[in-house]
């Protein structure tokens, strides 16, 4: 960190906010509430202007006002119809615009979801392999996938063969959740570590500037 007093002041503010948020670990308190509400306000202000510059200006003002692409008035009108949602009496008007948005998004989603989540995943499960250990792993993975899917099949009671498959499936799922937890710990700790390193570097800079 630089030993520039302006920067140190800003960094000091950041350290104060960091400690204010951490104070929640002991109990909810006014410092935490202050930091949290300040964050909400600043974040909302940032996103508002980002949306204006990157969204509204680039995709509404520039095409219509500067490039005279008048067909953009159609989605603009539909977008403005969405604001009727705020009116208790005329809220139904927003459904026309919402219909276009939902219809187009959903229509695009369905075939791509089939391909991504179903076809390619099933193909990956049954793709041929060569070699002994790859064949063992292939078999274990195939059994794991089929049994885990059997666990989610609730149209029949989990008895007999389905019961055995379902039981195998839940154990497979537990291994997946355990692996997920192990990696989650690493992820959560990384966030804390970054804050600790930031505060350490600040206090070292401050000490260096003061003495």
């Amino acid at each position, binding site marked *: 960190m630089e030993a520039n007093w302006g920067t140190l002041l800003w960094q000091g503010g950041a350290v104060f906010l960091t400690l204010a948020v951490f104070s929640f670990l002991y109990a909810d308190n006014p410092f935490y509430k202050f930091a949290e509400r300040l964050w909400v*306000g600043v974040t909302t202000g940032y996103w508002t202007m980002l949306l204006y510059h990157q969204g509204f200006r680039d995709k509404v003002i520039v095409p219509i006002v500067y490039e005279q692409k008048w067909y953009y008035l159609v989605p603009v009108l539909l977008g403005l119809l969405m604001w009727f949602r705020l009116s208790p009496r005329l809220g139904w008007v927003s459904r026309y615009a919402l219909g*276009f948005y939902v219809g187009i998004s959903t229509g695009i989603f369905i075939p791509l*979801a089939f391909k991504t989540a179903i076809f390619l995943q099933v193909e990956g499960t049954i793709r041929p392999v060569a070699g002994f250990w790859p064949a063992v792993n292939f078999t274990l993975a195939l059994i794991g996938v089929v049994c885990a899917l059997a666990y*989610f099949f609730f149209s029949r009671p989990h008895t007999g063969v389905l019961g055995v498959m379902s039981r195998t499936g839940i154990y*497979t799922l537990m291994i997946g959740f355990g692996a997920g937890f*192990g990696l989650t*710990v690493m992820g959560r700790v990384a966030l804390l570590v970054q804050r600790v390193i930031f505060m350490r570097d600040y206090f070292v800079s401050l000490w260096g500037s003061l003495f």
Partner: protein
Amino acid sequence: MKKQIPILIVFVTGLIMVLQFFVPHAASEFLFTYANDFVIVIGILALPLGIFSLMRGTVIKARKDPRERFYAIVTIVGFLVMAIANFRRDSGPDSLAQNLFSYVMIPCQATIFSMLAFYIASAAYRAFRVRTWLATVLLVTAFIVMLRIVPLPEPFSSWNSSLVQWILAVPNMASKRAIIIGVGLGAISYSMKIILGIERGYMGGDK
């Protein structure tokens, strides 16, 4: 009229976009490109609704609840200062906008999420019990995966590393694949219900 026409719009546009996927003609690609473009613009104009609702709620809170008034004012002042600071598109480094981003937004957001490290430590101590065989399997797997970070003496380090790689690539992969397929089937069926007008929750109230 208030419901039937929107349902018809969803059905027609949804069906067109599904069929478009299978038609490689230039006209189909043209339709796809401009449908996406239009949806982006509709969305851009709709998003401020959320911002407006949030700020309206905050102003109402500032007026009505004396205990929350100070914090509501903090939110509103933070919003206004950040919005004004970002009035210019490219404020540049060392600007008020960049400093507010780096020294207010980043610390607050990063710290709020970093508290999860404490919660996960607490959860690991207080909730992870070998009550059943299932819980034991979960615990042992988590234990093996976490051990990968710790520098063990050889050959344990190599064995653990290989075991973790195998766990991630085979049983974990199988488990997550089943979830992907299950969730995918659920999402596809829900989307089809939306297009067919069976699912109407997106339309809001029954007026």
